[in-house]
Each structure stands twice: as C-alpha cells, then as structure tokens.
C-alpha cells in the first residue's frame, strides 16, 4: 500500500466521519430532495395500465418522464435499485381533517369547525398547517394526498385537496376545491346523541328549510350577478356561485338511507351539476338508486360499526363492495386526522369483504383522482403525471409491508416522522435503568 493510497483512505475515512456527524446534527429535521431519480428493476403497479415486471420509472422535474422495461437512465440520475420492490401511485384519502387538527381534544388546535351554518366562503386551504406533526406521520405510510375538509352543520366551508409536502398551503394545493354540504341528518350523531326522534325531525326540518332558502338565494344571486355583474358584497353567495353554475363540485355528506334518498331528490330537483356524495354509511341499502343517479361516492370510514343494531355485523366493511357491485363509483376516506395512515387498511377491509383487491386499490388512487378532476396529475403511474408515488416491499394494504421511499411531486420525502424518531431514541434507551 502506497503512502498516497493511505492518504486517500484517511481522507475518505475523515469525510465519512464528517458526513456521519453532519447527519447526526441534521437527523432531527431531514429535508426532502428534488432531482432526477431512476427507480430500477421494480414491479410497477400502474393502476391504469396493468403491472410492469422488472421496470424502471424515471423521475425528472417533478414528473414521471419515462416508464417501462427498456428505459435509459438519464445522466446524473440517482439510481434507486428496486429489485424485489413494488411501485404504486401515492394513495389519496377522500376525507380527512389533516392539517386542520393537531390535538383532537384541544379546540385551540381544531380549525375545521367554524361558527355558522351557511359559510361556504371559509376555506380549509387557508387554515392548513403545513408544519403539522401529523403530516410526516401520514406520508411515510404512502398516503400522499388528502382532502382536508371543514365539518359542521349545513355548509361549513370549502374543502381542499392537498399533497402532503410543502411549506405553504399553496405549495401543498393539489388542484381541487369543493363546497361541503352536510345534508340535514336524520340519524343520531354517535352514542352520546340522546335526542328523541321528534327532536331530530324538528332539527332536520329546520336545517332543510335553511338550506333551501340559501340555495334559492344563491340561484337569485347567480341571475343578478349574470345580468348586472355588480352585486353587493355577499361572501357566502359568492362562494356558492361556481356551484350553482356547475363550475365547482358540491360535496354532500349523507349517511342514513333516508338522507341519501333525500339528497338524490334534492340534487335532481335543483339540477345541481357537479356532486360527490360522502359518508354513505347506509349506501348499501339504496345502492341501486345512487347508481341510477350517477353520483360518485367517497365512502368511509370502512372500519366502522353498523349503523343499526339489527344490521349484519360486517355491513360497514361490506358497504364499498356492495356499492360498487350496484354500479356506483367508489372512493374511500378515513375521516381521520392523526390516523389517516390507516387508509390502506380501510381499503384492505373493503377488499376482503367484497370490493376485491384491484378495485380497492383504484378506490384510493385513480378513482378519487378522477372525481377531483386531477387524474392528469395524480392517481396512477403514467408518463407525464406528477411523480407522486411510493416504493414498498410488498402489498401496501398489508401491515407486514414496509414503505421504503415516498415521492411527492418529484420530491423524495425523508422517511422519518416524530414517531420514527421516538423509536430510534427509545428502542434501546441510554441511560437505561441506572445512569452511568
């Protein structure tokens, strides 16, 4: 061994040590990385165009630029060997409070439930906290995109589709907003709701007249606005205008079969053009009617109890499958904030109890992407789409599977969150029981 060689080795060693120290220093807040990546030798589950064995995905400028078996790796691309690994499009949750809620019980950290019943002008997107600790916890599971939704009575605001990376709401915005309508609910809201049927009826009747009143006003407003273009400042009407004109989707929450049928009639009577139904816990009771109306649904949570004591124990698991079988377009949601990471398991239960694996995968990828009008960017592995995808060592719906890499819009995400950091620190705590 020559002196030069030894010198080089020493330098390499020093550089390694320096790198390790630097890594240590920055381990607390690793950053995402933008660049050109080649994910090679992977089994690619494109969702829309079948499965490609031993394939390569090229990521450049935030997009999927090439895809297939014989793909040249561009100069300077970072190669990630995915032999024995799978590539899937990032999963999309059709209904969450992610970014709008940090600590569930603390009203100071809940930003999804404003005062008021017809307030569609309130925008979820403005209240998204890009630095929520819940976001990295979610995205390392392969869920890359979610609807952040306001919640409350009647029209609690406008929901937004966000990608789970970015430092401002605008950087996170994924290209879809929809006005939320919580249709007057004839069911009980959880086991603590002890209202009599009469009290419930009175409340829903009141809410329904308020809704119709507001809608009629919005139609009027639309006519005035179209005629004169000089309407007064009327923010809630302004927010409803694009819905009336069929330019923006109305996301309608309804769960009991009675309420779902009421929505179908209401939508038909008022000729509402763009509608998505959400929740639909009892959708299976009226699946044929929903299919006939041609309204797509975002069902869930799948991991839920049946709504009636005399219903079969597995009805909530079976609901998405029964809807699909009747011809309804089905996407899924968790309604969670901190545990949106369980979206793949909601999909798995739906798959096992009737939806089937392929359709379950579609229900958390391409189907919601199409519903939100963003299928040109998200929902499948195709050339030209955003590089929003993940690499796993198996079926992502199985709890045994590890998610190894996550890309959002071409950014390679750090695979850490506060939960993994706590694991690293405490698996073998030092000091242990006694301090040295």
């Amino acid at each position, binding site marked *: 061994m020559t002196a030069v060689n030894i010198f080089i080795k020493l330098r390499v060693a020093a550089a390694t040590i320096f790198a390790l120290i630097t890594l240590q220093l920055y381990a607390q807040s690793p950053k995402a990385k933008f660049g050109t990546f080649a994910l090679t030798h992977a089994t690619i589950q494109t969702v829309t165009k079948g499965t490609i064995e031993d394939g390569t995905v090229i990521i450049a400028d935030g997009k999927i630029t090439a895809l297939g078996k014989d793909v040249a790796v561009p100069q300077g691309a970072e190669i990630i060997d995915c032999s024995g690994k799978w590539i899937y499009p990032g999963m999309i949750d059709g209904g969450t*409070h992610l970014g709008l809620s940090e*600590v*569930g*019980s*603390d009203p100071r950290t809940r930003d999804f439930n404003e005062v008021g019943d017809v307030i569609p002008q309130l925008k979820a997107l403005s209240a998204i906290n890009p630095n929520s*600790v*819940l976001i990295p916890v979610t995205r390392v599971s392969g869920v890359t995109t979610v609807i952040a939704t306001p*919640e409350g009575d009647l029209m609690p605001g406008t929901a937004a589709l966000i990608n789970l990376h970015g430092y401002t709401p605008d950087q996170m915005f994924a290209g879809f907003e929809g006005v939320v309508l919580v249709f007057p*609910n*004839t*069911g*009980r*809201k*959880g*086991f*603590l*709701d002890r209202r009599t*049927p009469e009290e419930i009826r009175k409340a829903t009747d009141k809410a329904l007249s308020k809704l119709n009143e507001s809608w009629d006003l919005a139609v009027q407003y639309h006519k005035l606005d179209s005629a004169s273009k000089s309407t007064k400042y009327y923010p809630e009407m302004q927010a409803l205008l694009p819905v009336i004109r069929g330019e923006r989707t109305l996301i309608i929450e309804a*769960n*009991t*079969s009675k309420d779902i049928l009421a929505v179908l009639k209401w939508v038909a009577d008022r000729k509402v053009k763009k509608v998505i139904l959400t*929740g639909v*816990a009892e959708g299976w009771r009226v699946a044929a009617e929903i299919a006939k109306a041609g309204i797509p649904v975002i069902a869930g*949570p799948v*991991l*839920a*109890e049946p*709504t*009636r*004591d*005399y*219903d*079969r*124990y597995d009805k909530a698991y079976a609901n998405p499958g029964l809807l699909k079988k009747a011809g309804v377009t089905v996407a899924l949601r968790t*309604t*969670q*904030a*901190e*545990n949106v*990471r*369980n979206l793949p*398991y909601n999909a*798995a*239960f739906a798959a*096992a109890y009737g939806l089937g*694996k392929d359709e379950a995968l579609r229900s958390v990828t391409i189907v919601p992407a199409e519903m939100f009008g963003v299928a040109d960017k998200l929902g499948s592995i195709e050339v030209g789409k955003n590089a929003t995808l993940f690499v796993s060592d198996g079926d992502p*719906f*199985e*709890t*045994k*599977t*590890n998610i190894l890499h996550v890309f959002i819009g071409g950014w390679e995400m750090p695979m850490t969150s*506060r*939960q*993994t950091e*706590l*694991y690293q620190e*405490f698996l073998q*705590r030092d000091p242990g*029981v006694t301090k040295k």
Partner: protein
Amino acid sequence: MKKYLTSVLNILLLLVAVTYGFAQEKGNLLIKGGTVLTVTKGTLEKTDVLIRNGIITQIGKDLSASAGVRVIDAAGKFVMPGIIDAHSHAALDAINEATSPVTAEVFTGDVLNPFQVGLYRALGGGVTSIHAMHGSANAIGGECETIKLRYGVKDADALRMEGAPRTIKFALGENPTRVHGGANNIVPRTRMGVEFVIREAFSKAKAYGEAWDTYNKSKTQKGFRGAPPAYSHRLETLSDILKGNIIIHCHSYRADEIYMLLKVCTDFGIKKLVFQHVNEGFKVAPELAKFGAMASVFADWWAYKFEVYYSTAYNAAILTKNGVVTSINSDDGELMRHLYHEAGKTQKYGGLTDDEALSLITINPAKQLGIENRVGSLEVGKEADVAIFQGHPLSTYAIPVITVVDGIVRFDREKDPDDVRIYVDPKEPLDASVIHSTNDYVDNCMQQAESNYNNLFELK
C-alpha cells in the same frame, strides 16, 4: 295491530327474560385440519383440536370425536386462541362513578348487560374474553369484571368468567385532574395531586387493615372487650390491593406519571400492576421491565388529546423488546372487532414476529388479567376459547369465520343471521341509525364523567 304486536313482543321478551341462561353450557367440538397457531407452542400445520366439555383435550393429527359431536372442517383455515381484550367498556350499563377521586367501593360486575349487540360484533372479530372496566374519571376507580362473550345468554351472571382474579381501575393524568380539580375544585388538579390521592388512600387502607388485624387477633383472647373497627367497603378493597389480592389496571399516558406509580407501588409493597394505554410507556420501558409491571396499549392511537401527542406507534414493539409483557386493547366497540389487525400493525411498527404479535392479543392480556393458566393459548387442558380465520389473522385480508367460547360456537359467519338482537326496544323507530361522528371528540373511558363535567360547566 301495531299495539297487539308490541304486547305479544313484550310477553315473548318476558318469557325470554325468565328463562335461565346457558351459564354452565359447555360444548364438544372437533376442529379438523387447520393451521393451528398455538401462540405458546408454535404453529402446527394440518392439525386437529378436540374439545370435550368446554376444555381442549387433544391437539394432534387424525383425531376423532364420538358420534354426534360437531366437526368443523378447518382445512385451509387458521385456528388461534380466542382473542382477549384487556381494556373494554362493553357489556356495561355504567362506566364512571365520577363522584369522588377514590371510588374503590364500586364494581362494574354489578352493571353487566348481556343484551348489547356489540358483544356479538366482537365475537365476529374473534374475541372471546374482555376486561369490562370502570372508567378513568377517578384516580382510584372501581373494581372491574372479566367476562366471556357468551352472547345469547340472558342472565348477566352467565357472562362472568368465574374464578378470574379481582382487578381494579386506577387513572392518572388529564382525566382525574379535569373531572375533580378542574370541575369540582378538589384534589387532584395536578399530577402531584394524583400521587397524593393514591398515597393517602393506601395509607388509610394500611391503617384500616392493621386495625382489623389487631382486632381479629385480640378478639379471641380471654377478657377482650373492644369493639371492631368501623367497616368501610372502600378501605376493605384498597386493603385487599395492599395484600396482593387485586391487580391494579392503571389508565396512564405520560412517562412521568407511570414512573410515579411504580414508586408508589414499590413503597407500599404492591407488585400486581398493569398499565393501561400507557402511550409513553416506551420512554420508561426499562423501569417497567425491572418492576415487572405490564402494559396494555393501543396499536396506533395518538394525538386525540394533549397527553398522547408525544406518542409513537412503535410503543408495543419497544416495550416488547425491553421485556415488558405487552398487550393490545381496544377501549372501543369498533376497534374491539379487529384486534387481530391492530396486532398486525406491530409488524409494520417495529417488526414483531408472528408469535410476538399474536401474543399481544392472546396470552399476554391473559397474563395481565391473571387468567393465563385457563385461556390465551391453544394447549391441552385449557378452556376451549377458539377463533377460526380464513386467511392468516395478521393479514389485513383475514376474515374471522367461527368463534368458539367454552366449546360452544357463538359466531359462525356462514350461519350469521342479519338480526342478532336478544332484546328489542319496542319504542325505537325501525329506521333509527347511529352515524359515526368525527366532529365531537369522544373519550370512551370518560363516558358519564364527560356529561357530568359538561353539566357543571354548562357546556352541552
């Protein structure tokens, strides 16, 4: 007509109510050719399990049963011990006696309700035993009851797992401080106060026990004239904890409060201690292991309140790898139905082996309830509580198909009727639905306490 139907229904219900339940019912079964996940003795392919009079009498190949015994073909299926939930509030008509920081005198076994459909739904998830617990409003809550899910019985007593050790609920942190300090302005309002309440209760119980010991010793002596000490059911129960007759199951989240209770129990010579929820147990795993305290956790619940904000789903794995006997519980009627899936999450979060993961919902909760010699694994001589799955139970695609309690099939997916209600409320409208709500924050442990609290603040 409707009136007539209602009265017929009422008469039928009355008949049902007076009929004695199946308290002592025990069954015979032969489960053929399944993959038997014994949990404690490995996995046995294509193996039979023979059950006689509610007890597993043989595990092996080519077993045969006497004529008339039902044979279940489990070929291609997985046979595991019935799942045990170490933290549930199912089967109870009351949860929280939220009237004092110490209520050791009450007992959830006094308010068992065998009619809850939720019990059947849990059977549909392979669950056979649950720990029906008092809530977490009080630093020292009430005694709890361990029951078997013999859904179908009408007699509340028939649910009890006779001979299971006594257990009691304790609670630390936000819940007792909120209910008593926050709402009533009495101790405890802080974690300091919680420690004091527990130490004071134990000290009084110690004096009480000593006074009775002295009295019992001297009363037989000639010429003794003293009166017995005043009887207190509360102190009697607390004194039984000090004597090692009751297992403490303590609702807890933060590492500091967990550590505090370890020290209190050390000071009072208490050894039987299980922490419930224990979200930050991973931070004091070495201390828990050294004490011999056990932990019953959620797989991934966090951030629903401030004291669980610094949690990790790797909790169960860290505790297990540090040698703490750990289980995964539900505390929730929905979650209770898929504890096998919750156990599976520990493979994602910390890479536990199949046996380690399955132990979290079988033999480990059995140890925590002191019933590990009777249930929690598939072994000859144990009670025949069995769950049969289509697909491996740790797979998210698994479907529980048959659940057996004491050798009796209590759930059979193929023969599952839509309506399993035993008690039908004649006043409930036919189309009344309960819809899952995410808007209202619900803490199951705080049922009843929550409404008292809200009343006090007129929050409603």
